[in-house]
């Protein structure tokens, strides 16, 4: 029993890492990883929303009618996102400004809707909370790894603190948007090399998989043919 709980918690961090393995939530991964502080705060905000919404959805899973479950999930998630927004605006206004529109966009972050659909709507409250914590930690870890590479090489600093000796060797491309794609691509290639698996998008990473209902060959709009 203990082992099962532990494995739910741990699988999100490495085996089913939402960013590097499931390829969910690419937008914030690319957008907020120009420095460690914003990456960390984005990861933690998403984790809080994920844990809360997972628990709420899991608790309500028998009440929510199957046909309207996606709109219901979105409302629950949006409510928690608004809560986090208000808390950050009140207590950490600097971080609120730094994350900007991406904070509100946690609503459409595929990780949260994906976990609601794949896990929370089928499992108990405690398991769902653990899944949320694990996935949240995995998301935060992946964001921090991206941010570490981009900030050290692109800006010569860690979490805003300049590293002595690097000020003349900044490759500022990494701080710009092309650098986001580049770093993410190289990280994925490293993952593919290490795990020996070719990285492809499948329906599991498609935000609309649950609404679409088409798999494999039928899947026209989705990612099955990538």
């Amino acid at each position, binding site marked *: 029993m203990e082992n099962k709980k532990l494995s739910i918690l741990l699988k999100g961090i490495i085996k089913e890492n939402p960013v590097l393995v499931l390829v969910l939530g690419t937008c914030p991964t690319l957008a907020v990883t120009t420095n460690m502080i914003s990456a960390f705060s984005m990861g933690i905000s998403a984790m809080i929303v994920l844990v809360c919404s997972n628990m709420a959805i899991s608790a309500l899973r028998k009440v929510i009618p199957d046909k309207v479950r996606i709109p219901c999930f979105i409302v629950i998630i949006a409510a928690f996102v608004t809560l986090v927004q208000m808390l950050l605006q009140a207590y950490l206004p600097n971080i609120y400004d730094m994350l900007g529109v991406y904070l509100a966009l946690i*609503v459409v972050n595929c990780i949260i809707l994906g976990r609601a659909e794949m896990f929370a709507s089928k499992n108990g409250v405690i398991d769902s909370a653990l899944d949320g914590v694990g996935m949240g930690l995995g998301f935060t870890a992946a964001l921090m790894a991206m941010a570490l590479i981009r900030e050290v090489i692109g800006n010569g600093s860690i979490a805003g603190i300049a590293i002595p000796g690097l000020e003349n060797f900044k490759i500022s491309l990494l701080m710009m948007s092309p650098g986001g*794609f580049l770093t993410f691509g190289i990280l994925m290639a490293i993952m593919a090399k290490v795990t020996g698996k070719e990285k492809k998008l499948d329906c599991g990473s498609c935000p609309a998989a649950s609404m679409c209902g088409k798999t494999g060959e039928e899947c026209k709009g989705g990612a099955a043919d990538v």
Partner: protein
Amino acid sequence: MFKQMVIILMTSVLVNNYVLNKFLGICPFLGVSKKLKQAAGMSVAVIFVQVMATAATWPIYTFLLVPNNLKYLETIVFILVIAALVQFVEMALKKFIPSLYKSLGVYLPLITTNCAVLGVCLNNISDGYGFAESLVSALGCGLGFMLAMVLFAGVRGRMESSDVPKAFRGLPITLIAASIVSLSFYGFRGIIDNLFK
């Protein structure tokens, strides 16, 4: 007035491209850009929904949320409006224009969770745009999405026939190609200042 509209349009298409510069709508950009026809179909659906969503959310925010001091509800209200709108557009197309539904229908459910749509609605509010400006900006960002998708579909077509190192096959090389396409858009920096100001 007209000049300002053109500036907003050009800025959101070329300079602040939503996909390549603001990283909004990356999922469909990576997922549906394999074939030119699909990329174009998805983009048309996005342009359509984006303009409709802006036309719906801007009045709701200005005339309903602001006077009642409910600004903090914008995230919830906007996502609900977008979800309802997408559903409604899908039903309306199915009933009245079946031929258009056949070509766009498959892309519509994907759009609810497209962050570019919610992003443009929220950005229009935070940039303080008026109604007409918001519509132009939504149109521009939709066109920018289309430009990026169509260009990238061409790039991916070329990639099919090239010999990619094993670890880079699939998604990694796609991301690196996206990085180069994004870099090329940096060439448009300054175009607005030099053309219009």
